């Protein structure tokens, strides 16, 4: 065949073309838009958008609502991330135990929340959190707690969303941890036992170090995922009460698609990207240093 070198290009063209048009060019377009005052008037006629340089970013840094949303998001990531990872690790260790019967059933049960629609379960949880009729307050009353006004109290609304997120997501990371646990060879545990290590010693000196690459990956995934939380506040609290659950993506959505301030919303999107990118870089660097040491 004459044009043999063309074949692979022919095969990747549809995918690359789609990604170029609907992913890579929009990233650039978004960057450009973030330097304009693109708003509802520009939506009618593109030429009404004016170049404003870094003005949006300057405004963003002085926007108390943006800082509020960023603070809330960081709260969600810092509390929800470790809790999710901890729950996932504990569940994986339990599942990995040789003494456990009906392992497949437990695994399936723990995994179920992962595959469900976040909107649907957020709707369910909204009722479970109901201050008067909700199941959670009812169960808590048996141990003498509450009643807590979960979604109506600015102090409790965020913890409520975090608990939902942990419940929804831990099963995914549990699967990854479980696979990681299964690659740890038995002789390491035997050696630790011969050295007199108990359960905790084995966990600290064998399990945790052996799982380090898995934990690194899981941490990165959780952080990136949790920085983008949106559907929970959208369905359960609409960002309230008093903006206590306003997330960065929810704020972006409000600015961009409710008030059509698309230039400003683009600058929020890039800020989010920048933060996620920075965290990913820091984590990778930390990981490299750890490996080198």
């Amino acid at each position, binding site marked *: 065949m004459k044009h043999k070198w063309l074949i692979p290009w022919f095969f990747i063209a549809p995918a690359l073309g789609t990604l170029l048009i609907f992913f890579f060019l929009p990233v650039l377009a978004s960057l450009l838009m973030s330097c304009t005052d693109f708003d509802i008037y520009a939506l009618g006629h593109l030429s009404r958008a004016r170049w404003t340089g870094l003005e949006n970013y300057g405004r963003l840094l002085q926007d108390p609502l943006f800082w509020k949303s960023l603070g809330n998001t960081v709260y969600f990531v810092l509390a929800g991330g470790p809790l999710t990872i901890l729950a996932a690790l504990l569940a994986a260790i339990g599942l990995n135990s040789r003494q456990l019967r009906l392992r497949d059933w437990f695994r399936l049960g723990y995994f179920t929340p992962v595959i469900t629609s976040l909107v649907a379960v957020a709707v369910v949880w909204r009722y479970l959190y109901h201050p008067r009729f909700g199941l959670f307050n009812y169960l808590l009353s048996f141990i003498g707690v509450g009643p807590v006004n979960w979604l109506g109290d600015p102090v409790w609304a965020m913890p409520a969303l975090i608990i939902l997120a942990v419940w929804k997501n831990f099963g995914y990371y549990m699967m990854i941890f479980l696979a990681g646990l299964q690659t740890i060879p038995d002789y390491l545990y035997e050696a630790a036992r011969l050295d007199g290590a108990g359960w905790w010693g084995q966990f600290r000196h064998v399990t945790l170090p052996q799982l380090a690459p898995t934990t690194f990956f899981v941490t990165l995934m959780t952080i990136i995922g949790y*920085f983008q939380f949106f559907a929970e506040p959208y369905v359960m609290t609409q960002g309230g009460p008093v903006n206590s659950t306003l997330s960065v993506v929810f704020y972006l959505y409000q600015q961009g698609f409710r008030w059509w301030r698309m230039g400003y919303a683009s600058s929020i*999107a890039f800020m989010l990207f920048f933060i996620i990118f920075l965290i990913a870089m820091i984590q990778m660097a930390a990981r490299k240093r750890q490996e080198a040491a």
Partner: protein
Amino acid sequence: MSARDVRMKIRSEASAAERAGGVTAFRRRHGRLLSVIGLHSLMLLGLAVTLLPFWWMVMASFMPGGEASTFPPRFWPSRWSLEHYATLWERLQIGRYFLNSLILAGGVTLVSLLINSLAGYAFAKFAFRGRKSIFTLLLSSLVIPGQVTMLPVFLMLKQMGLLNSYFGIIIPGMASIFGIFLIRQYLQGVPDSLIEAARIDGAGELRIYWTVILPLAKPILVTLALFTFMGTWNDFLWPLIVLNRQEMYTLPVAIANLMGEHAPDPELMMAGAVVTILPILLLFLALQKYYIQGILMGGLKE
């Protein structure tokens, strides 16, 4: 000390040791039993907490109106009622939203499977200039959050007149970096000799892709299809933005919208949640080993 005393002493020491050994063995055996019971109770408690919301969702969806807003909360209906499912179907057009979700998830899955498998095959089995750098570029752009491209793509679809159409979801979803990656990883394990043999037999390149590669890649195609279908079915933010005419709503968008008007009807909302979750749950139960395979391949991508 006489020989008899010595023997007595040895015997008593031995029996003491035996007794002591018996005690440790006893403790060990019962300790193990305790730890087995402890493990199972903890795991069962965790399972109960995990499944409780689903239990309440299903039960409340069958309760007669008002019964889910009582104190103390009920754990099962006093009388099984299908009225809320009937209301959803007859008055609230849930069938239409179900169909929209089905068409979109099915459409994105079919088209993206074709496009991603072509690209994944090329990246796995052809040597061409720029292969490595393009692939690295694709992988590193996975850190870019989707929200960055949302606004320009929305404007683009608006210009093309694709808002409120199925294509507004299907076209941008035609290619996915994760999908290309998954298929490339899998096909790298396929021996070149199979492809070479087909070439020697005079098969054309498209024919090789269709009759040799696709059948070989079947397990990973099922995995990817499952991920894509479930991802599109459950997706919320993008359909919320692109499909804002009511007859185009997908199930999650419709449910979130119903929440606005029907928040005082928990039974009705629970029925809606069941309809949204059930198809995906059944699909997952049927094909779970493929899904787990996908998580693990994604989890090993570093």
